[in-house]
């Protein structure tokens, strides 16, 4: 993974001191809350319902074991012993004191981490395929380009006061594990016919109040021009994006209002006039960054480990976990392991300091000291020898991180909702907990198959409900918590937005509604190989509406 050099280190240290000064000025009264708020927000520090919340960037979801141990330490020393992994591959601490935040940042800087641009109307932490560097069929490690974007976007002097926040995601396989189409910019690495490296550039996706799927504005952009092209998109947006209405200020609205063709023309025209060599990185710098993402020293192993195969055949519980939580690796004899942060009845995405420390140890032992954070709020060890899977499974089970439910109905995404978030209309976490407990029977879970349930506590859609196979949105009906259900959303390479199925359900009825949807699917699917999403796409919403509302 990327390691800071003296410049990277200096920048982060400068930032710590700058923020220390800002906090001091706030505490001394030199800055009012009004003046301080945008400053703290540019550093990921929110004031939530019960306390401050500090959001820490985990660029493209990659952590070293030392970094994860540091997060555990911060959780214990400055917070309440846990952290929350978010749908943007970040980590949130829910209880830091304002006066401690400069010290927290100083501790983070020791392990090459920061909270820069984790909020505010700027280019946010760039996200990536969480299986980067391990996934089969990858063009090259997308994190090379994420790191290039991370550096370019950090304190970009022109783009720190955009009309609204701006999110970029990068992948390098046909399969989309990073939800490209719901990002302001989605970049898919590919090669053209001549073998040249480049990107498909998608612009204008997003969730929130007006969900939109991004449109491809350039099927192929030579990779070396990535930064100048991004700069052209951002400048076009900065100058033309709406600033009069919070809900119309994302780039998706601009693309929609001028039309994708005209938007593309504006970007291309701006790009044509830019001095590319000043903006794009010299090849030597790209190579320098690329070198940091060289594959780890894999052992030469047979494609299939005999001992692992034997165990899998002999131990159904192990086999179940492998089927749900282990994915194929591009390197023979290796596997990718997802650590479920969705224990049945638990809080999606939460990890205790003890779990973090233990996962760091396991990463050192089994996965070259590297941990990934997925946008589905799980962790992953992506370079595990098949022969180690049995031992790892045992260790994870002791940590309550081996629930065999990845990609299944209880692998629920849930935003913090009204338990923490000051913008929320309703709680998300308790709903996730109740659904998860209702569906926890493992045979049934496996029988239902792939099913993505995503819950947001308000229309901001941090819980990605628009792209859930079943999406659940908390709404406030006269002071009561209600939940609106959408069906048929998807965030993968076949991205689609969910459709509202009908009137919202009360908190008591929401678990029943999910169970009814699942029962309807089971009764109508062609067979176990027809996934929920495929069945929904084939049969449409009517049978579900019928089952949910006919009795009333």
């Amino acid at each position, binding site marked *: 993974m990327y390691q800071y050099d003296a410049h990277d280190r200096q920048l982060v240290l400068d930032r710590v001191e700058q923020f220390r000064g800002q906090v001091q000025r706030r505490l001394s009264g030199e800055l009012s809350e009004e003046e301080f708020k945008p400053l703290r927000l540019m550093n990921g520090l929110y*004031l939530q319902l019960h306390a401050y919340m500090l959001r820490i960037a985990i660029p493209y979801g990659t952590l070293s074991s030392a970094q994860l141990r540091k997060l555990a330490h911060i959780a214990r020393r400055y917070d309440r012993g846990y952290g929350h992994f978010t749908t943007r591959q970040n980590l949130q601490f829910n209880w830091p*004191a304002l*006066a401690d935040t400069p010290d927290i940042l100083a501790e983070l800087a020791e392990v090459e981490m920061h909270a820069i641009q984790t909020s505010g109307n700027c280019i946010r932490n760039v996200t990536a395929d969480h299986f980067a560097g391990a996934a089969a069929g990858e063009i090259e490690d997308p994190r090379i380009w994420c790191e290039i974007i991370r550096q370019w976007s950090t304190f970009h002097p022109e783009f720190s006061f955009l009309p609204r926040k701006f999110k970029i995601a990068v992948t390098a396989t046909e399969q989309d594990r990073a939800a490209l189409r719901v990002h302001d910019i989605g970049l898919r690495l590919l090669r053209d016919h001549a073998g040249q490296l480049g990107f498909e550039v998608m612009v204008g996706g997003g969730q929130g109040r007006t969900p939109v799927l991004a449109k491809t504005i350039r099927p192929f952009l030579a990779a070396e021009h990535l930064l100048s092209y991004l700069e052209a998109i951002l400048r076009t947006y900065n100058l033309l994006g709406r600033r009069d209405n919070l809900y119309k200020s994302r780039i998706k609205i601009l693309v929609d209002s001028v039309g994708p063709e005209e938007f593309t023309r504006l970007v291309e025209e701006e790009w044509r006039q830019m001095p590319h060599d000043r903006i794009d990185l010299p090849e030597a710098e790209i190579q320098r960054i690329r070198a940091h993402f060289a594959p780890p020293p894999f052992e030469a192993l047979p494609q299939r480990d005999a001992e692992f195969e034997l165990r899998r055949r002999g131990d159904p519980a192990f086999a179940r976990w492998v089927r749900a939580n282990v994915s194929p690796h591009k390197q023979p004899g290796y596997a990718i392991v997802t650590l479920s942060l969705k224990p049945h009845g638990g*809080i999606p995405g939460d*990890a*205790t300091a003890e779990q973090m420390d233990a996962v760091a140890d396991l990463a050192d032992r089994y996965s070259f000291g590297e941990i990934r954070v997925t946008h589905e709020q799980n962790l992953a060890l992506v370079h595990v020898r098949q022969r180690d899977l049995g031992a790892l499974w045992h260790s994870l089970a002791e940590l309550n991180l081996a629930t065999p439910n990845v990609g299944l109905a209880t692998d629920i995404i849930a935003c913090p909702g009204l*338990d923490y978030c000051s913008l929320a209309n309703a709680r998300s976490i308790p709903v996730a907990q109740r659904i998860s407990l209702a569906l926890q029977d493992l045979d049934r879970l496996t029988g239902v198959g792939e099913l993505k349930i995503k819950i947001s506590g308000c229309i901001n859609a941090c819980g990605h409900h628009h792209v859930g196979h079943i999406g659940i949105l908390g709404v406030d009906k006269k002071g009561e918590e209600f939940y609106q259900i959408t069906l048929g959303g998807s965030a993968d390479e076949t991205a689609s937005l969910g459709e509202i199925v009908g009137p919202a359900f009360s908190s008591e009825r929401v678990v029943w509604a999910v169970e009814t949807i699942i029962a309807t699917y089971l009764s109508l699917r062609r067979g176990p190989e027809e996934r929920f999403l495929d069945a929904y796409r084939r049969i449409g919403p009517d049978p579900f509406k019928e089952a949910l509302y006919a009795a009333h």
Partner: protein
Amino acid sequence: MAAQVITANRLVDGAVVYLSADGQWVQSLEEASVAEGEAAAAALVAAGDRAVAGRLVVAPYLIEVDRGPEGIQPRRYRERLRATGPSIPFGGGMKG
């Protein structure tokens, strides 16, 4: 007009606080000073403004409450959660 209490988040640590009868910002809603009527509410707002200027709290505002056998109860659900903390155990995972 419902009875009102003034609440805010404490500047240094963000904790939920209420203005008490003896003019302190306290974490327990039970100890909050309850205003009946406009004049009393205006006095709470004025005290809130002073606390902002004095760098004690951030963004104070009035909330509506009822007084019953269980003590002071905010009317809005959101405020009930603010008063009691998250409705879930902290930490999930092993503790959950």
